[in-house]
């Protein structure tokens, strides 16, 4: 599949701070590509350079074979953007905003259809200031899709939304992708990246520290799982160490946490515990996720 976005050795500093330090990646047509990482990792700087909204120090960027800064007008006619730090006039009605933005583009989609699709028909005569967080984000999505763009940029689209609105937003993203668009998004929710993205680039301190499909990133952790349970009486850790696939065991107060891999590890642990007549409750097994990948690669948690 052809590349829609190509970023090569992008660099951008603010004074002494290197916000983006040599980032390179490609985005293929029709995929959802996620830039994930903690706040301040350089996600917004990266996406805004690609959007042509920020000058950068070094590197090459091409989107749809266009230079986002030099071919600015042509570029902006063919992409859609949702920005993190942006707003709309408080005292404008939803339909007025959409109508105004439509007038900037060479072509635009039917406004009624968009309102219907994103559940804002009943809100079309409301002022922007009266909308809820989720409604505002949906309006921003409408603006990003208004010109029927080939590529859509979304910067922290679900930040500040409650879980329900976030889920609804994810569904919309999948629908947009299924309509043949390419999406480049940033997020600091690993769960979101796992759910939505075909491929993710994990960035930290302006560097890409991993780039692959979410499944492969997790698989590279050697299928490690975490098993935990509560015990009532002390017991000898040694009896668990004899099992296959155990990586480490920790006991915190009355909670036992086991890291290990292998298909049967949960079964083995449970069998051993019952054979040894050890009373346990609250048994949990957790699959590794992108948060664990981040922890493994950087040695620090996503949310610090």
């Amino acid at each position: 599949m052809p590349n829609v976005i190509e970023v090569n050795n992008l660099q951008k500093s603010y004074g002494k701070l290197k916000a983006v330090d040599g980032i390179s990646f490609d985005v293929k047509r029709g995929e959802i590509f996620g830039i994930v990482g903690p706040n301040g990792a350089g996600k917004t700087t990266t996406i805004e350079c690609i959007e042509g909204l920020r000058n950068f120090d070094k590197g090459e960027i091409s989107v749809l074979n266009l230079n986002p800064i030099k071919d600015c007008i042509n570029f902006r006619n063919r992409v859609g953007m949702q920005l993190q730090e942006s707003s709309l006039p408080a005292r404008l009605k939803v339909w007025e905003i959409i109508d105004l933005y439509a007038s900037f583009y060479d072509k635009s989609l039917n406004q009624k259809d968009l309102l219907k699709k994103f559940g804002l028909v009943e809100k079309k005569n409301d002022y922007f200031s009266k909308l809820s967080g989720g409604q505002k984000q949906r309006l921003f999505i409408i603006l990003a899709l208004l010109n029927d763009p080939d590529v859509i940029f979304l910067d922290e689209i679900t930040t500040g939304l409650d879980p329900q609105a976030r889920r609804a937003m994810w569904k919309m993203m999948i629908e947009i992708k299924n309509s043949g668009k390419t999406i480049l998004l940033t997020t600091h929710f690993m769960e979101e990246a796992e759910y939505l993205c075909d491929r993710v680039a994990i960035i930290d301190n302006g560097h890409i520290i991993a780039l692959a499909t979410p499944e492969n990133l997790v698989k590279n952790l050697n299928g490690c799982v975490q098993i935990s349970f509560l015990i009532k009486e002390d017991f000898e850790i040694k009896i668990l160490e004899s099992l296959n696939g155990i990586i480490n065991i920790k006991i915190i107060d009355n909670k036992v946490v086991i890291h290990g891999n292998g298909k049967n590890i949960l079964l083995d642990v449970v069998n051993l515990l019952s054979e040894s007549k050890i009373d346990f409750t609250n048994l949990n097994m957790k699959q590794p996720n992108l948060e664990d990948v981040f922890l493994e690669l950087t040695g620090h948690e996503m949310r610090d």
Partner: protein
Amino acid sequence: MKGLSKLIITEFKRFTREFEGLFFTLVFPVILLLIFGSIYGNKPSDYFNGFGFIDVSVPAYLGMIIAIGGLMSIPISVASDREKGILHRLRATPLRPQTIMLAWIIFYFLITLAGSLILVATGKIFYGLRFQGNVFNIFLGFTLCTTSFLTLGFMLASIVRSGRTANVIGMSLFFPMLFFSGAMIPSQSLSTVIKNIGKFIPLTYVVNLMQGLWFGNAWSAHRFDITVLIAMSIVMGSIAVKIFKWE
């Protein structure tokens, strides 16, 4: 110029939905005129060369309305749009900076004109306002004066960082200008010291030109005023275009 007319209409809608701009541009000058009119009336007097207080004040107040646009409305609304990220969002579209600049210029010109017409109508209806100039000349002079203050406004808007700073700077320029230029108090009543300070204040040239044209002076009597205002428009306009920031 895609989006130009929609942008102008949008600015009008926002203007009519927000109290401050509406009040300062359209209502405040009229209230002032009515207050001073009720105190001094509009009887012809030798002090004003055979004209009345209102006859002299109306063209000077036109200068005040022009100054409100340039010193307050534009810097405050552009700076707070920038601060809130409204301009950032606009920038993510194919909208060209020239288009939005032109939309703002046309919009502020039109509301300044509207405020001026309301003021003149009030003077005419309540105080039998006298006018000895030529309507075309007044309009031309008004356009020049407005342009020079609009460019000043955009320059200020590019310098200040937030709506709040714009407010403070706008106010602290507006009120001194109002008193030193003769826009508020007829220049006949100003002391020589104040008149001399007034020579360094752009609004003085607006008031001079508007009053002169109002009473039928020839353009040639205002060569210096015109030169200052044209120079202001060119210099500040080019600075504004050069330093304009979306964010």
